[in-house]
């Protein structure tokens, strides 16, 4: 018997996802945007686990592991991009300043 029912977990994950999305849209700092992205990914991962618990299927947990790996890769690539930009002498982490196709 799970602690949370499916409805409760759906509510929780959609709230989590909305928080992530809002963070993504309103923050300008690249690092915070990455964190918001991870929040959104984790929301979907939690939903997979909840669904797997509801239908007694291990695929949900397998999908969670995959999303974990995906999030790790995404974070590392994102951080690498930020480091690259920093190495080129860009003084800021503001995402809106990088809107021109010039490196």
């Amino acid at each position, binding site marked *: 018997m799970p602690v949370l029912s499916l409805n409760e977990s759906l509510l929780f994950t959609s709230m989590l996802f909305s928080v992530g*999305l809002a963070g993504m*849209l309103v923050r*300008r700092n690249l690092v915070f*945007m990455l964190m918001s992205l991870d929040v959104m990914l984790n929301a979907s991962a939690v939903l997979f686990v909840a669904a797997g618990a509801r239908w007694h299927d291990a695929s949900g947990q397998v999908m969670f592991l995959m999303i974990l790996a995906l999030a790790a890769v995404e974070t590392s690539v994102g951080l690498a991009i930020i480091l690259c930009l920093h190495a080129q002498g860009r003084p800021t982490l503001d*995402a809106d300043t*990088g*809107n021109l*196709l010039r490196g």
Partner: protein
Amino acid sequence: MMSLLLPLAVLCPLAASIIVFLSAGRLSARAVGGVACGGVGLAALSAIMLATGLLAGPPGGVVHAQLWEWVRVSGFSADIVFTLDRISMVMILVVTVVGLLIHVYAARYMADDPGIARFFGCMTLFVAAMLVLVLASDLLCLFIGWEGVGLCSYLLIGFWHDDPANTAAARKAFFMTRIGDTALLCGLLLLATQAGSLRIEPILAATMAGLVPSFTLIAAASFVLVGALAKSAQIPFQTWLPDAMAGPTPTSALIHAATMVTAGIYLIARLHVLFAAAPVVMAVMAVTGALTLLVAACTALVQSDLKRILAWSTISQLGYMFLALGCGAWQAALFHLMTHACFKALLFLAAGAIIMRLGHEQDIFRMGGLRRTMPGLGVAFVAGASALAGLPVVTAGFYSKEMILAGVWGSRFMTPLSAHVLWATGLLGAFLTALYIFRCVFIVFAGEGKGAVSGGTPRLMAVPLACLTFLALFGGIIEMPDVIAPVHLFTALLSPSGHPSPMHEPGWTVLAGAIVPLAGLAVAWVLWGRTPAVMREMPQQAAIIRLARPGHGMDVLYDHIFVQPLRLLVWLTRRDVPDRLVAQAGWLTRSASIALAKTRKDILDTVARRTAIMTAEGSLLLGWMQNGRVRWYAGWVAGGLCVALAVVMLS
């Protein structure tokens, strides 16, 4: 073994040609001549072996050699395949043996020419192409040889290409024969559509079985006839052969007398079954032959160039053969082809030797009295002339001409065309032949000497002349009229199974055929033999003869009919008349389209303008969306997702 020997006969001259061409400038003249003679000699040897093998075999037996398959699609096939039967056996013997003698002669004749490698390359290539033509049992394969001999003829007529007149003569020969080649190809394609193959035997079998519609048959036969007429320089096409004398004399002997021009005769003899089914075409052929015979003989009578006399006499003799073919006496035509190859080659080679020793003098009126200075050549030339005139009993030409005349006498036409009239024409032609050739003999050899004579005849040139003299005198005794002796070896050779066709010719026709050449000889003696000065110089004074003489009448006619309209066209093109017409048409079109456009302008304009405005606005909107800001993109993604979800939920 026989079928192995057959491709070898073709391959030897071809290999010699390739060797000679590739080694141009690296081999000495003697070596080049040796290689060429060797190639043709091997071909002659294999031809003789093939002939003996074929004659030892069963009557009607043939030798097949299929080399490779050329084309195979559904409904049509063509192979490279050689077949040796009795007709082609006669032809390969003529081509290789006479060709060999001429090559031996030419090895000495051309020894001092810097282009000797090119010359012998072309000559041996010609022999190879001619053998392909003769041996092919597929008409498409035959066409390769047909074009090959045309090419070699072109190359050799223009051999001394420094003189523009020679290249013009070469081009003329090429164009004239090209007309015929095109017609021949049309005929072949027509046959191919009917028979699905161009193998000769199936086509002839289909013709005999009456499977080919008669209209198609007549059309195909006419096309093939036109091709043969052009190759053999018969009446509408006769103008190229006299000009072809611009080439070296051995070329004239080999190509324009002995072999290539007989290709048309051979083709029709080969397809005689096809022509027998089209009697109208046969009648046209006979009349054309008779007409050519007379016209060419008359033209030869007033020429003053030694080689041109022989050229016109070749045309005249080919007319004889076409007359025989048109009357259905194809054996007689082939027999005359064989003897003609011998004596005409002899005449040309002797003439070449005479011309060489006189320092390239070709005008017979500047010769004279040569019987004392070059007796050997005189004997050879007189032997050839006698054979050409057909002096009775002792020459080959007599027997072949008798056979033709007998065939013409005995022929039957469905059209109201009397065989006896044609026979009389042939007889008149024989008289004229004797007249013009002995005119030439008397002017050249009798009388007192003019002009200097240098050197002697080299042995390498004398030996072929002796061989050909022998053949020209005694080559004819294998076939005789019944009145003299019932010898029919040649007919028996060609159609071994069939009984020799009985020719019911009265004895007096043979007598007439024997007397007429003698009469011609006598008249020639009266006119040119004794009388000095006046008669001799006549051809240069009489206006009518001067008009008729160069045979340029036909050239002028052709010039007016064919060349001038083309010139007019060229003039029109140069003055940009078509261009102006086009410009006018373009102006008209433009004004019309302007008027038309005015009526439609408003609608189209509006549509176009609206389209442009909408496109511009759309691009502005898109450009504003693509602002490069990541957060905006994320917002678009989220918004799009929401819209998609909403659509899914609401629908």
